[in-house]
């Protein structure tokens, strides 16, 4: 029953984050510019100001979007509906399966040997994540194959190339995490981020290696949370644009905003397909944020307060069970808060970034991100060997 319980808890958290993502998405839109009023979206149709509809009208907008789906479906000639449906289904299952692999906290009861707080704990979880993200992205290619036109086929080739190159870079970006944590298991990577770490340990090891006296006692004092965001900042910086590009959907007409936005392959005017495409896009962005929180922000861990410090004072009064449940609930709330914060930051950053043409981002990925990812892997590998040497072969 533990698996089902974890699945229900994880579903509740993801539902909360999906609702939050719907509210935060508005931050992604470019604000109204007084200099170019002709480019402003005609929002008077749905109420609210020109910048964006107020948050209090979110429920009304959701109801209106739901009402639009009742409208008669459109049917485009020369388009395979079955293939499009299958592709959306595969993409949705792949994204949901990838979400099921994300650990949302450490172990139950703050015991490293306790049950991991994750729906599916795979030994090679990191590779499975790459596989599921690749599968979801390749399903988009299949959506394009449903159209028989020359341009759709050409776009499929373009999209397939883009997906494969990004999947390769994604694997290179994730490899330093596996090197640092000695495992491909996502729960192991989260456990590796528990506690504090010493930022000056590498410099100290370098000085000792060069025969110098080192930095002294303070260099061994752990002061920062051992999150990979602090231990591998370059990996964290590379992870966001790569997974952002990988989970990004092509441009499509947005009938509500009367603009062009990221939604699905092709220019869909069918509200039903638009709904599924948006849900898929939202799931992809939630997966990005949840993965970042799990891999770089210690999942649901609170900084400087371990779960053991929550459980230990309560254990003499309530036994082991209730404090463990309270600690898990606190960590789950922290995970949701971190994921929503991450979605907010990504929305604000992507609003300030230009939309790159295909040739621009291909050049950016192959000539900037790819060499940086390879250099980062070598850097982490060298640092790991150095620290292992300084610790006399024992795990630092």
């Amino acid at each position, binding site marked *: 029953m533990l698996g089902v319980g974890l699945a229900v808890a994880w579903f509740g958290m993801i539902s909360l984050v999906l609702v939050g993502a719907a509210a935060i998405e508005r931050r992604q839109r470019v604000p109204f510019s007084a200099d170019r009023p002709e480019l402003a979206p005609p929002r008077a149709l749905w109420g609210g100001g020109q910048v964006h509809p107020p948050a209090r009208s979110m429920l009304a907008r959701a109801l209106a979007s739901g009402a639009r*789906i009742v409208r008669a479906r459109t049917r485009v000639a*020369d388009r395979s509906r079955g293939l499009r449906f299958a592709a959306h289904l595969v993409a949705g299952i792949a994204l949901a399966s990838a979400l099921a692999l994300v650990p949302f906290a450490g172990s139950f009861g703050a015991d490293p040997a306790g049950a991991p707080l994750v729906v599916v*704990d795979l*030994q*090679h979880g990191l590779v499975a994540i790459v596989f599921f993200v690749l599968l979801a992205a390749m399903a988009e290619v299949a959506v394009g194959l449903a159209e028989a036109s020359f341009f759709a086929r050409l776009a499929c080739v373009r999209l397939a190339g883009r*997906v*494969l190159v990004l999947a390769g870079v994604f694997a290179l970006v994730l490899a330093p995490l596996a090197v640092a944590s000695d495992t491909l298991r996502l729960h192991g990577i989260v456990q590796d981020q528990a506690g504090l770490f010493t930022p000056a340990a590498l410099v100290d090891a370098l000085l000792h290696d060069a025969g110098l006296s080192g930095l002294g006692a303070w260099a061994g004092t752990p002061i920062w949370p051992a999150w990979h965001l602090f231990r591998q900042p370059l990996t964290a910086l590379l992870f966001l644009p790569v997974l952002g590009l990988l989970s990004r959907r092509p441009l499509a007409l947005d009938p509500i905003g009367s603009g062009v936005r990221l939604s699905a392959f092709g220019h869909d005017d069918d509200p039903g397909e638009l709904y599924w495409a948006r849900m898929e896009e939202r799931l992809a962005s939630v997966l990005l944020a949840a993965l970042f929180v799990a891999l770089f922000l210690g999942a649901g861990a609170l900084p400087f307060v371990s779960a053991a410090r929550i459980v230990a004072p309560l254990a003499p009064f309530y036994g082991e069970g209730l404090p463990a449940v309270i600690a898990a609930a606190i960590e789950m709330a922290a995970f949701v808060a971190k994921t929503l914060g991450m979605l907010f930051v990504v929305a604000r950053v992507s609003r300030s970034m230009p939309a790159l043409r295909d040739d621009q981002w291909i050049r950016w990925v192959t000539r900037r991100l790819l060499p940086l990812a*390879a250099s980062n892997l070598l850097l982490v590998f060298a640092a790991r060997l150095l620290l292992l040497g300084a610790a006399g072969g024992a795990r630092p």
Partner: protein
Amino acid sequence: MLEPQANPVASTASSAEAVLGWLCFLVLLGLALALIPLAAAAIRRALPAAARRPVPVEPIAFGHSPRAQGSPRQPVRMHRTLLAAAVLALPALLLLLGAPAFPRLGVAALEGALALALPCLLVTLHARRRSPRP
């Protein structure tokens, strides 16, 4: 090297329990997401037949520009990108699989890494020479 694992599920939970949890999560999420379209479909079924008949739409045509028809350069470049991407993705995935073993192998892993990296570098340099900056 990584020890061979008979059971890919790493936690104390059994494989059956993990699969049940995965299925439960998938079904719950699918039901939650399909709630609105299912409700819409139920309402649509109650509408008169004329109102719910699908609207036929012509596929969007982008035209055939003489430039696109005259030169196969763009499709050729796209196919070259696709092949290069496929060549890149496979070693990257292999590298990810072998990454946890690197610290245990120590400096000996560098020999293997160089054997993998040098052909990639050669191909990259060759491709760079053949595609001048547009």
